[in-house]
């Protein structure tokens, strides 16, 4: 504490140096004058008195110097001098400065970028008051561990819980908004009246919904701040006005605060963030059965202060147990699951984020080792200078400061440069993060990241100073000063230490190299995998056939049939169809079904339900295995049929024999007419869920995806496709126009991890190559005379080349050997991102060392070549 205060005092004294000098001078002059006046009073003449005063008190000049010295004394004396000397020293060896500073800057840059991701996605608290008390609540069974809650569970929980301050429901259901004479599909979420209070928010304008509005067909809504601004010109008079929504008049009752963020979720919910345009009441007034059986509403709750999530889970499970005793068929075997909101938002991406962060930390560690190695080389090169300083009485702390100040200067330069690099590369980062990554909007280059970059660089450079500085203080000055250039013995310990550091560096790089190779192999295997459909050249868009225009199933079916015909007749279209969903889009709608003659014992089988028309098979490029796909002849008035996937056929109908069998689902016997190949929920999933398709004509859905396969660029088809929709229904908005390829690519978070790992591995191996280069160049420099002598005595240049290169390669081999153990062990921790390869994957164990060796060779060649080119007539003349 005192040291710190003195430091600041000194700093202030340094800044006000000139003024303080003036003051001291005046003070000393005053002293001298008083002394002279006293002498005069004793009777001396004026001239004699001044002489007497000088004798007694000394001269102003002399005293001033000692005052100045005293002002600068203390633990931080000469810090500026040190830094100035460090700057000069660095300027004198630009190759060291460039190598060390550049390597540091590159590592700082990648780490800053990674930090922006980790900070934005994981560390930054969610934007609600006391976010740690917010939880997601699920119904949890063996089959569905994170099932949305039923409405009855919500109501019972709200009434009977002892651990919550509130619980609310939300579920996505987009609306079509008419404004400026244009129909637009808007992301909309239906919420209960307690949704905003649970999150701790209130509308910026107007009011929240009321409990009495939680009924189907209540036509009131709240606008997001963004919607209010961009669609209604931020008109404060909007409250109470009617707008046209789903072709009916709705009343605007409120506007959300600016930047209000939705809590997100995997199922029937937009992602976490400012992602919702409209909010409307959730209709709880469903038929009694539906209130228990339907699971389409997500729950978010706020636990009481000081209540752990586990206690809340126990409390809410008690309520589910009670429900199970009253309605065993709905709630048997179910319990409540309570998950902190932050955890739920992060979801599966947490593993990716932490993997990337770990890779970043590894790079920083390598940069630190690298800088350490370079610093050691420098202190050894400056042995004589430092030994003289030591002999002249420079204490340990003083000597350490020489190294420290140089590295600090490098750290500062590296940090600033790294920050600049990070800023330049930031736009690139945004393009490689998968679009559905949680909290992507939070990934920003902020001052926190800048602070991180600088402290990262400084910490690295200080850490890298410790060993070289400590070593320096242990050097015997006698030895150091007596050393001439030709003698290399004294540096041997340092060389050994540096060699160990570089081997360590290569070992650390090999961890990243392993990771990168494994991920490359995974994505190759994934690409070769049969995904059950072909994403190339397909355009998709989404339509919502909302009530009341499409109130009857017949009207929806009629529209679908007409649109399919319209799309198929567009130029360049090979196939077109309408379906409820496209692969890898997170569709997760399930139903129970029955097999004729199955006993009533045990759980009834469950499968994913979807619907599609005749054109969908060809449009998505799905593979028909047995029987047939649905055809035009499957109409509402013909035999009810379904097409199942292989997984369902295998699990319940004995595979190929499924065709012709009957599935009892949604109250009807439906004949299985065909079996199609499995399509997994996500590209890397081990297996597909049992799934089946209704013909859209027999079971019409209001929420549709159009899929159009074209010969050319799918996105070029967007405009004619829109026109085809408008021709049938002028007021029906077309939404989510995308190419299936883009959607498929976005489904693969592995891509991001892959990109990062590749970039990091390249950087790490580059750093190692620099390390190898550094130590060899240094060795060659130290041994110029020896090598010259050898050449003069007849060693061939090839021999010199070989010997030098071998020194480098030995280090590489050592590091790689360590990496062979470390790499797979570390890859084991990232198993979740691997697909089809084990951490002990043979080809990887072969490929990674080869790549590493190539980098080592790259670092070796320069110095080895230089050594073999040495001219003995020159080197032998040097002293």
């Amino acid at each position: 504490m005192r040291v710190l205060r003195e430091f600041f005092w000194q700093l202030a004294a340094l800044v006000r140096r000139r003024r303080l000098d003036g003051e001291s001078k005046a003070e000393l002059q005053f002293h001298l004058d008083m002394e002279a006046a006293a002498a005069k009073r004793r009777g001396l003449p004026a001239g004699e008195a001044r002489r007497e005063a000088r004798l007694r008190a000394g001269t102003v000049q002399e005293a001033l110097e000692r005052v100045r010295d005293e002002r600068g004394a203390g633990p931080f004396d000469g810090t500026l001098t040190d830094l100035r000397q460090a700057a000069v020293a660095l300027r004198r060896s630009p190759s060291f400065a460039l190598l060390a500073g550049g390597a540091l800057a590159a590592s700082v840059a990648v780490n800053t970028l990674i930090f922006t991701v980790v900070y934005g996605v994981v560390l930054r608290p969610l934007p609600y008051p006391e976010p740690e008390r917010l939880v997601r609540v699920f119904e949890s069974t063996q089959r569905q561990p994170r099932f949305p809650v039923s409405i009855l569970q919500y109501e019972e929980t709200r009434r009977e819980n002892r651990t919550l301050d509130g619980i609310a429901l939300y579920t996505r259901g987009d609306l079509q908004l008419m404004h400026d004479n244009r129909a637009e599909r808007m992301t909309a979420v239906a919420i209960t009246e307690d949704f905003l209070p649970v999150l701790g928010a209130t509308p910026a304008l107007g009011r929240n919904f009321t409990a009495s509005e939680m009924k189907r067909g209540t036509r009131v809504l709240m606008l997001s701040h963004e919607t209010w601004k961009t669609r209604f010109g931020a008109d404060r008079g909007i409250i109470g006005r009617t707008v046209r929504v789903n072709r009916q008049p709705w009343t605007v009752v409120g506007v959300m605060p600016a930047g209000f963020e939705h809590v997100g979720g995997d199922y029937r919910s937009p992602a976490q963030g400012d992602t919702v345009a409209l909010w409307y009441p959730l209709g709880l007034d469903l038929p009694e059965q539906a209130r228990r059986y339907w699971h389409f509403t997500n729950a978010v709750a706020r636990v009481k202060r000081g209540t752990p999530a586990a206690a809340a889970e126990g409390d809410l499970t008690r309520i589910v147990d009670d429900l199970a005793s009253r309605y065993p068929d709905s709630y048997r075997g179910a319990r409540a699951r309570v998950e902190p909101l932050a955890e739920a938002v992060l979801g599966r991406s947490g593993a990716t984020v932490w993997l990337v962060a770990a890779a970043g930390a590894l790079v920083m560690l390598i940069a630190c080792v690298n800088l350490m190695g370079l610093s050691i080389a420098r202190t050894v090169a400056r042995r004589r200078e430092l030994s003289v300083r030591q002999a002249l009485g420079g204490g340990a702390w003083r000597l350490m400061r020489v190294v420290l100040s140089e590295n600090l200067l490098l750290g500062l330069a590296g940090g600033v440069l790294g920050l600049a690099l990070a800023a330049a590369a930031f736009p690139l980062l945004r393009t490689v993060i998968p679009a559905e990554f949680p909290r992507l909007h939070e990934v920003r280059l902020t001052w926190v990241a800048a602070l991180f970059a600088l402290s990262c660089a400084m910490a690295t450079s200080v850490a890298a100073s410790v060993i070289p500085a400590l070593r320096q203080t242990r050097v015997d000055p006698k030895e150091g000063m007596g050393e001439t250039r030709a003698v290399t013995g004294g540096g041997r310990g340092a060389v050994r230490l540096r060699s160990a550091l570089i081997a360590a560096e290569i070992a650390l790089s090999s961890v990243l190299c392993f990771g990168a190779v494994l991920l490359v192999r995974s994505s190759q295997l994934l690409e070769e995998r049969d995904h059950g459909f072909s994403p190339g050249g397909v355009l998709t868009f989404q339509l919502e056939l909302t009530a009341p225009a499409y109130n009857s199933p017949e009207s929806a079916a009629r529209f679908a049939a007409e649109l399919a015909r319209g799309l198929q007749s567009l130029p360049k279209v090979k196939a077109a169809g309408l379906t409820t969903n496209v692969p890898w889009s997170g569709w997760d709608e399930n139903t129970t079904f029955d097999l004729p003659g199955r006993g009533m014992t045990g759980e009834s089988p469950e499968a994913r339900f979807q619907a599609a028309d005749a054109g969908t098979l060809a449009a998505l490029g799905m593979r028909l295995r047995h029987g047939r796909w649905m055809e035009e002849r499957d109409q509402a008035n013909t035999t009810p049929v379904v097409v199942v996937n292989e997984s369902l056929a295998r699990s319940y109908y004995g595979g190929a024999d499924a065709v012709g069998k009957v599935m009892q689902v949604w109250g009807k016997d439906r004949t299985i007419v065909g079996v199609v190949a499995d399509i997994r929920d996500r590209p890397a999933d081990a297996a597909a869920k049992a799934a089946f398709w209704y013909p859209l004509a027999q079971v019409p859905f209001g929420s549709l995806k159009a899929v159009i396969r074209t010969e050319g660029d799918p996105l070029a088809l967007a405009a004619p496709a829109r026109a085809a929709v408008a021709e049938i229904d002028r007021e029906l908005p077309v939404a989510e126009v995308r190419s299936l390829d883009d959607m498929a690519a976005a489904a693969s978070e592995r891509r991001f991890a892959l990109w990062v790992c590749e970039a990091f591995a390249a950087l790490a191996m580059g750093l190692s190559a620099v390390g190898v280069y550094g130590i060899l160049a240094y060795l060659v420099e130290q041994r110029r005379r020896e090598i010259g002598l050898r050449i003069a005595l007849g060693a061939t240049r090839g021999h010199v080349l070989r010997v030098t290169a071998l020194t480098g390669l030995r280090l590489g081999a050592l590091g790689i050997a360590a990496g062979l153990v470390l790499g797979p062990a570390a890859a084991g921790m990232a198993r979740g991102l691997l697909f089809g390869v084990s951490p002990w994957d043979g080809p990887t164990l072969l490929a990674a060392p080869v790549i590493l060796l190539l980098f080592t060779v790259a670092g070796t060649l320069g110095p080895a070549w230089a050594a073999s080119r040495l001219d003995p007539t020159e080197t032998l003349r040097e002293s």
Partner: protein
Amino acid sequence: MTNETASLLPGTLDLMVLQALAALGPQHGYTIAARIEQVSNGAIQLNMGTLYPAMVRLERRGFVKAKWQTTETNRRARFYALTEAGRKQLSIEKAEWQRMAGILERMLAGNW
């Protein structure tokens, strides 16, 4: 001329200055030096090169505070005043000095 620095035990100068300020209240450097000389019966003469670095040291440690004021002869001079920390330091050092002096006295007079 006596060379006062040689006869000063290390650390005693700071103690003397603190004691002088405690006894006299805020004073400028000349008075401090003059009073120390007077009280020591001329045994200790401080020249500026000794006194003023000590003042800087005491100021840096927060034991004294300096302020420009006018003297009774209407000249501007830098006056030093004891701070609370300085007062505390003085009592600590005083006690320490007396303890040491007592020990030494016993040792020098005692029978071994």
